């Protein structure tokens, strides 16, 4: 469904803040992947790279078989072999695989790598690249701070995207929206503005706003972290019923109970890499990575 290949992400003027340092993962259809990790380890950044709210500095992201980032030459040996850098290294009597390895390890490619290299890039772009706006329709996202459209009513929040993108007529979109609102028991709030809702209600609306686009996968970035404790339950319940309906989900959270109960796989992020990956039982029973042991001892 989503395939993240060796993704790097730097921030700052000169990329001096290195947040993701080579992350690879596959999210298969029907999976519910929970991402755990200490604050600042890059969980949000990884999630935001999946729908390109952040543009990765390196690596590729694929969604349902389509490339949504620029192609990354370091992932294609045959492409690297067309580069001027590679030729230069061979001329200096480097072995072929050593040269390739060194180029990747030290990220040696520069702007000028020759015509053949450029042509290959263009060919891959043309063949595999999908417009990001189309790809995003397949991925719903739920934010920590809800981000409901403040100038629109609850119902309008749900119908805006399907109608503007001409996926549904106004009537169809409203019908679907009302059905979704009924599912979260907020049909009576259809004409309220977000300012009038509680945090828990906002987040439930935010979830169904994403669902109104009928996505194939849902991304959650700490959906309950900004909520008062008594409202966490109602949001988790909506997420659980979504999981039960078979939705593919990627969830960044600090809710260990949810991770254990709902997750099919847990990834532990630490310092910009996925340090450990396991099924929930395995993950909590037999943590291997020292940082994970420390993390679990703190949160459990």
């Amino acid at each position: 469904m989503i395939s993240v290949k060796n993704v790097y992400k730097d921030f700052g003027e000169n990329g001096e803040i290195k947040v993701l340092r080579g992350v690879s993962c596959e999210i298969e259809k029907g999976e519910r992947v929970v991402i755990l990790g200490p604050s600042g380890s890059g969980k949000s950044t990884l999630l935001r790279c999946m729908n390109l709210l952040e543009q990765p500095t390196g690596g590729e992201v694929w969604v349902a078989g389509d490339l949504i980032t620029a192609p990354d030459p370091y992932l294609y040996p045959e492409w690297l072999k067309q580069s001027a850098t590679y030729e230069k290294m061979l001329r200096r009597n480097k072995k072929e695989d050593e040269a390739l390895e060194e180029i990747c390890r030290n990220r040696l490619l520069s702007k000028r790598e020759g015509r053949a290299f450029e042509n290959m890039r263009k060919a891959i772009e043309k063949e595999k690249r999908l417009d990001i706006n189309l790809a995003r329709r397949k991925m719903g996202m739920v934010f920590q701070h809800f981000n409901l459209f403040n100038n629109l009513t609850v119902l309008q929040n749900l119908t805006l995207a399907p109608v503007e993108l001409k996926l549904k007529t106004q009537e169809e979109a409203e019908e679907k929206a009302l059905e979704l609102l009924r599912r979260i028991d907020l049909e009576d709030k259809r004409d309220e503005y977000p300012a009038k809702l509680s945090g828990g209600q906002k987040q439930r609306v935010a979830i169904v706003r994403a669902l109104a686009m009928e996505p194939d996968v849902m991304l959650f970035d700490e959906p309950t972290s900004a909520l008062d404790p008594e409202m966490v339950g109602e949001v988790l319940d909506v997420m659980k019923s979504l999981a039960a309906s078979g939705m593919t989900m990627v969830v960044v959270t600090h809710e260990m109970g949810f991770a254990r109960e709902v997750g099919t796989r847990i990834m532990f992020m630490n310092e910009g890499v996925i340090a450990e990956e396991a099924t929930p039982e395995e993950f909590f029973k037999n943590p291997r990575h020292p940082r994970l042991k420390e993390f679990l001892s703190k949160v459990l």
Partner: protein
Amino acid sequence: MNFFEGVYTLFTNPNYMQSLFKGLQITLVISVAAAVMGLLLGTVVALITICPDSPAMKIPKWISKIYITVIRGTPMALQLFIMFYVIFTIRDFPEIVTATIAFGINSGAYVAENIRAGILSVDVGQTEAGRALGLTSGITMRKVVIPQAIKNVIPTIGNELIALIKETSIVSMIGMYDLTMAAKIIGSGNNMASYLIPMSVVALFYLAIVYMLTFVIKKIERRLRAGDKR
């Protein structure tokens, strides 16, 4: 002649009244035309400045920046003089057009800054939510960001328009017959021979215009706010 007698004379003498209304007309025409021009120009410039950096936008962005810096960094009176004595020196070019352009350009720079600040004050989460749903940046701007930005900028734009109306009084410095000039003429030796009365009356005129405008802006503001808090 005491003050109140003077005011009475002014209001009952058809010649004086005619002068005042002639001046009022010019003041209003320049203000309204310059406001319209300033709003259009300001919106365009604001949109250019908030566009993401790209090679195609480089020159427009650069021009916008210089425009805002120069206009906001120099006195309005000087801009008006330059417009009159340096740029529009063609004979018989209508001076009211020249003045309107000068004030429109000036106002546009301030409006641009207000609008830019208004758009930037909308939480980025709003844009991210729109983009994450697959909406283009254009639709997100139009349907989500700009409606919220407008609410933020109405008060500051209102202040800008008020400042503009009052500032048009400097066209009297280049001899144009606006409200302020009317006061000068009525007060001169050939007429009432007292500046106090016509100046006070004209001050009341400005006050009345500004008061009405403030009222309208408050109304608009309240109407927009009613939108999100029902």
